[in-house]
């Protein structure tokens, strides 16, 4: 496994960098927030991303995708994260596209993949049911009723849940809370009358929802993958999601660090540039090192995902942990080093702090993944 981007991946990264800087600088995100946009992403920008082929990156060519891989889509998300670009690319282009491509029936693939590629269909993955991520704690039920299943329960903190057309939902078909067995994934149309979406107002001003499922009736054709082994399938999807979000968090951290570094080279106090103070220099140097470790971890995890390595789970937890800790550090230091303007709404740096804390919670915090890393490593 070479820890280096291929030419294709580098090209995607460069394209995404230009796109984010030109089409969606941070002012774009700010205006969505200020205008109380109902879905907090821009349909025009999503259309342009679709034209670039991004939602189809994980989708095979026979369904109109390009099959460029996890590394490809993750570096794009990393670049978009530098300008805090909001879009359905993570929930749809990663989670939806990966789930259906890898675990969907041929009918499901036929139905959904081309529509994901064309940008017509957006998706969301509904796993959590409480304030802390833990798939084993799934209580939502899917009870067998003849050939059908009746779904009841509540999902929380669903990324893009306020707008997604198709929901990928983890529910319990047997067993008890705390067990990874007895779980099954279902594909549910979000327009089903038994669904109640409650939009969440989170600190990072992005699209999330809690979703209530009231007696939703579906048949076995709605199962994604196999009945009863949805826990394993969900873990696989989540690991890909964790790597992608870690790449986003790396992008967030890199941008916050660059902005801060620029500020240290411009701001004068006591008649000198504040970047000449050793108290700040050493902290900046430590952040640089932590960012280097994060880059390597995320890159190794992306490559492991593309190569089908048996280290995938461990590297996924490694990258989510390190990305979480680094972004936590950098977002705090960025605000502190900016001084007074760092805590004003007018200045952009605070957006990174708020985004950081929310992203840290997505699909498991650094604490969750440190524990998981130890379990996988056998101690």
């Amino acid at each position, binding site marked *: 496994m070479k*820890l*280096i981007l291929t030419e294709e991946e580098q090209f995607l990264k460069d394209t995404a960098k230009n796109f984010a800087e030109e089409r969606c600088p941070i002012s774009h995100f700010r205006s969505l927030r200020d205008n109380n946009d109902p879905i907090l992403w821009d349909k025009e920008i999503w259309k342009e991303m679709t034209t670039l082929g991004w939602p189809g990156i994980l989708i095979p060519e026979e369904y109109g995708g390009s099959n460029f891989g996890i590394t490809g889509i993750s570096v794009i998300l990393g670049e978009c994260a530098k300008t805090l670009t909001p879009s359905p690319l993570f929930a749809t282009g990663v989670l939806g596209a990966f789930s259906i491509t890898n675990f969907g029936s041929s009918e499901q693939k036929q139905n959904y993949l081309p529509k994901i590629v064309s940008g017509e269909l957006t998706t969301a993955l509904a796993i959590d049911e409480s304030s802390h991520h833990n798939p084993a704690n799934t209580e939502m039920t899917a009870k067998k009723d003849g050939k059908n299943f009746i779904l009841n329960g509540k999902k929380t903190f669903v990324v893009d849940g306020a707008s997604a057309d198709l929901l990928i939902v983890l529910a319990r078909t047997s067993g008890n809370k705390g067990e990874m067995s007895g779980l099954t994934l279902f594909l549910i149309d979000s327009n089903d009358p038994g669904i109640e979406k409650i939009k969440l107002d989170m600190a990072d001003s992005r699209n999330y929802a809690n979703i209530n499922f009231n007696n939703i009736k579906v048949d076995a054709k709605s199962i994604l993958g196999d009945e009863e082994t949805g826990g394993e399938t969900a873990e696989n999807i989540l690991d890909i999601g964790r790597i992608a979000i870690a790449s986003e968090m790396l992008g967030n951290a890199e941008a916050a660090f660059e902005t801060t570094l620029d500020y240290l080279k411009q701001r004068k106090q006591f008649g*000198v540039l504040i*970047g000449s103070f050793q108290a700040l220099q050493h902290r900046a*140097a430590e952040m640089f090192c932590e960012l280097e470790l994060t880059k390597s971890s995320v890159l190794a995890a992306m490559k492991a995902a593309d190569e089908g390595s048996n280290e995938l789970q461990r590297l996924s937890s*490694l990258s989510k942990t390190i990305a979480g800790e680094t972004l936590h550090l950098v977002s705090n230091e960025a605000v502190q080093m900016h001084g007074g303007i760092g805590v004003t709404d007018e200045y952009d740096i605070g957006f990174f702090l708020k985004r950081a804390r929310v992203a840290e919670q997505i699909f498991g915090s650094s604490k969750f993944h440190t*524990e998981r*890393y130890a379990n996988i490593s056998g*101690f």
Partner: protein
Amino acid sequence: MSNLDKFRTETKKWLDENCPPSMRSGADPSIPVDEVWGGRNAEYKNPESKLWLDRMGEKGWTMPTVPKEYGGGGLNKEEVKILNEEMFLIGARQPLLSFGIWMLAPVLLEYGNEAQKKEHIPKILKGEIRWCQGYSEPGSGSDLASLSTKAEDAGDHFLVNGQKVWTSYADKADWIFALVRTGAKEPKHDGISFVLIDMATKGVSTKPITLISGKSPFCETFFDNVEVPKENLIGELNAGWTIAKKLLQHERAFISNFGLAGAAAGGGRSGRDIVSIAKKHLGEENGKIKNSFYRTEIASHKIKEHAFGLTLKRAGDEGGKASATASMFKLYGTEHNKKRHELMVAASGVDGVAWDGDEFDQDDKNLTRAWLRTKGNSIEGGTSEVQLNVISKRVLNLPSQ
């Protein structure tokens, strides 16, 4: 058969015929193990250590990339990779540990004249001459360029007077590469020269320093009217600082690799593994370290070391833009090594601070000494704070005061 395939076949055959059994993995554990540093006064508990060194030295494979004209192996990158792989496969020991190989030879190749290269490099890679480093002085630690050991022009030779400190194994070394002041003290970087001094010369003396670990790997080295021939000057007069910095980069890379090798082996050359130490002293439940507070801290540390290992791998895959990142590797390699030892000591409880006597396991007593030794890692070869300064200025381009 491609040339590389042919090289692999030949290398395999040569190693098979020439690497003595006790120098391979699976050797009889009753045969004593030498730490081979070579030199005029080298002693060997196992004669095969010497045999292995001589054979590898003759072949030039102790420094496989050095050109054959200087006694090296003359191998290209691919061939070195094959050599390493084949040595790894039979678990062959490194034939020689050497500051000459790790630090001096690379700068001699870059800055030495033809005669100097021909004179010194073959003796380094054959292990005939053991080298030590004369950099720090009692008054010049982190501010190395303020050094004051003086080398006065005395016609055909320099007359050297002064004192060096932290000279590793100077009491066992044959020659020293040293920084001396040949010009004015200001600007301090400009009056420094890089010279080679035979330790057998009249006026050179050494005295070991006992460290907090109870061991004495370092010495003080004194120069009292020492006559050094002018042909022992490397590079231009008063231009030694550039060479010194280059050598420090090699040293830093080497020290951080030590830390990494420690992480990769789970505990360094000693084979200490933090997880088994924790399980031994704190207990184990369902395969997990029983105490969750220690377990969490160990897991966090393991994650950091894993990420650091991947960063070294990435640097290699990118083709090693060494200078910019050498400081980061030195900083993290040593800080992680210290942290790992702190955790091992803490997880061992009282046994982790055992010093001597029959009440304690030898492993535990060794750990105490090893832990204390790591405290020097982040000081020698440039302190962690100096590395942070280098990153701030050279990598991040932050302004100077």
